[in-house]
């Protein structure tokens, strides 16, 4: 394995900032449960609350609206299940869960579970060919019977192809009918300016490890007047909405990372977008038939700055990934399941891509530590790699008669 790695998978997770590591190490040396009433407990609680205030200030919300979780998946589960249960308990008619077809599995599979076991009816909101949710469809689905809608969930920006969603417009529709809206902003935080004050936006998922914080901590930013049924029961922490001993070191690290991510968002986004544009420009020139997935408008309003997502016709994503990995270039084929089998992306399929295009796709995602050398390494490798993967794809296709 090559010693020099070009890490182009920041959307999976991005390096932890050095001062976050230091702050966490310091907190890990201290004893104290933030729920304890003595001095050590108070010290831990102080760190948690200061962190909560830091995050709230950075996101423009109230501290009490920040509910710490173990990460994005838990926050998505809490939002979708918690809103559904609370809304259903208040009015039995509210059984419809409207989610975009390109949500992360943390939302999609949660919604499916509600349908399979909790009496929900899940409706997938379609997206256009660039992966942007269809607002007209949302209008129709909500408008036809608003009283039966439990919640709407539309992500802020898609994690695979990077398409930014019209969250403010979605919020308007939801608000017009007093329907709660959840948005998974895991990929958007630190990449785009986030305005969480949009009326109608009731719950937003954020996580630490996509922004230079640690893995295993996140938050659901949820309005104080939003009724949520807890997923985890126990000690009653976090407004009784999320029980469990607060992870003081992780929360401290998370807060520092959110602070930096929001403060440096404009400069980081500009720098990362510059690298991404170079990757797209030279990559497309070297592999002319590569298809750039997502919004062709590379502006921040349309597309996450760090994501370049391509389909390479006739190639198998697994082959591409392995060949690049062998040269020290690390990227992703899409959402992987626990067994490590890359499934054809539901996002690309929702965008109208056929199975071949979905299977032959790669996501390159840049982040705060990316350098021009990372892009150069990929550009130097991509032509021969695609050629070889295509040959392998042809071999198998030929046998498949």
């Amino acid at each position, binding site marked *: 394995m090559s010693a020099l790695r070009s890490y182009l998978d920041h959307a999976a997770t991005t390096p932890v900032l050095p001062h976050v590591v230091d702050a966490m190490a310091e907190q890990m040396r201290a004893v104290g449960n933030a729920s304890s009433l003595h001095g050590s407990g108070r010290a831990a609680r102080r760190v948690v609350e200061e962190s909560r205030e830091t995050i709230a200030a950075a996101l423009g919300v109230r501290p009490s609206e920040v509910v710490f979780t173990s990460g994005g998946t838990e926050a998505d589960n809490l939002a979708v299940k918690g809103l559904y249960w609370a809304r259903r308990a208040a009015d039995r008619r509210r059984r419809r869960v409207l989610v975009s077809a390109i949500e992360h599995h943390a939302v999609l599979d949660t919604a499916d579970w509600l349908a399979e076991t909790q009496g929900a009816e899940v409706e997938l909101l379609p997206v256009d060919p660039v992966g942007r949710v269809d607002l007209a469809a949302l209008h129709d689905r909500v408008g036809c019977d608003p009283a039966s809608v439990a919640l709407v969930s539309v992500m802020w920006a898609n994690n695979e192809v990077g398409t930014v969603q019209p969250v403010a417009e979605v919020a308007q529709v939801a608000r017009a009918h007093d329907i709660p809206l959840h948005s998974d902003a895991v990929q958007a935080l630190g990449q785009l300016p986030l305005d969480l004050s949009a009326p109608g936006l009731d719950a937003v998922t954020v996580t630490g490890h996509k922004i230079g914080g640690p893995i295993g901590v996140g938050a659901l930013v949820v309005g104080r007047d939003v009724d949520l049924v807890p997923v985890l029961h126990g000690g009653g922490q976090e407004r009784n909405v999320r029980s469990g001993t607060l992870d003081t070191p992780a929360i401290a690290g998370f807060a520092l990372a959110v602070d930096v991510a929001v403060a440096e968002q404009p400069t980081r986004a500009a720098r990362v977008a510059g690298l991404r544009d170079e990757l797209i420009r030279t990559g497309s020139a070297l592999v002319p038939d590569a298809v750039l997935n997502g919004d062709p408008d590379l502006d921040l309003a349309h597309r996450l700055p760090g994501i370049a997502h391509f389909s390479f016709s006739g190639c198998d994503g697994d082959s591409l990934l392995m060949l690049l990995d062998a040269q020290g270039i690390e990227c992703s084929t899409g959402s992987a399941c626990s*067994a490590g089998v*890359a499934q054809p992306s539901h996002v690309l399929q929702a965008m109208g891509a056929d199975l071949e295009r979905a299977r032959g796709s790669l996501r390159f995602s840049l982040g705060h530590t990316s350098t021009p050398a990372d892009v150069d390494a990929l550009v130097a490798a991509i032509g021969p790699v695609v050629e070889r993967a295509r040959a*392998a794809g042809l*071999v198998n296709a030929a046998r498949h008669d």
Partner: protein
Amino acid sequence: MRVLAAMSGGVDSAVAAARAVDAGHDVVGVHLALSSNPATRRSGARGCCTAEDARDARRAADLLDIPFYVWDLAERFRADVVDDFVAEYAAGRTPNPCLRCNERVKFAALLDRALALGFDAVATGHYALLVDGPTGRELHRAVDPAKDQSYVLGVLDARQLAHALFPLGDTVKDAVRAEAEVRGLAVARKPDSHDICFVADGDTASFLRRRLGAAPGEVVDDSGRVVGRHDGAYGFTVGQRRGLHLATPAADGRPRYVLDVAPSTGRVTVGPRERLAVRHLSARAPRWCGPAPHDRLRCLAQVRAHGEPVPGTARVAGDRLDVELDEPLLGIAPGQAVVLYDGTQVLGSATIDATSRTDELAGTRP
């Protein structure tokens, strides 16, 4: 060499990969996901190659410090092995899916992809020996007769063998387990896999019934008298004695065996054991591990994975192979492979489609 090690998650393929690393090869581990059971929007759970198997393979690769990937060959496996298995039974034949998997998946789909991606060879944990002889690479029986898997590799041709690596052929199974233990591989004591990997509960008859549906028919004796009924001829194999559920006992009170399965009429014929004796078999589509032999050859014929080899004379004519056995073999079903050996060397194989008790081939089925 750049070697792709197929890692099932079992002890054999883990030690095979380890030996390939020790031999100085540049090794990449690949676990084949061969079964897809789609659930909700994600097809995650894998029937035969469970998540646990994938994890075991991954942990073995970690220990060997080699890259590791999971490749989804479920579609190929379904089309080339599982569907073929079902279709063969539906046609009244008895296929060997392991052999088919080696022929069409491991040393075809996987090998071809590996070669195209720049690998030189595919290594597996099969127990067989590769020997470089005067006319090229030879496939031989493993030194451990209890584990020898040369039979299910008898479908490989010279090109496939040229790119194969079987690092375990010179070792007995117990020694492989001991070696895994010494190497610290967690799979050292993992039980051997048995039966057909895609029939998870081992109940082939139920598996076939689910796939083919009920097809009731008659069980007749060799005089044509109806002696029982069944709900699917595909549930029977020539030579089978158990599970016949015959209503009418044999006149002489002796046990009866399946002599013939005719799916077109749904008729299963049973009779006494001696009628299972086969002296002659006729097979189609021979595949040779090396140069195709001329005309006639003396050889040993083996018709089951762990069956006894029997001396005989093989005659090759185009796409046909006829074998005259020096002594009779019992209960050979159409669909089984006959693998020919010269001593320990595998010469080739073909799929049996007709058998005869005498010198004359009667009742040839296409």
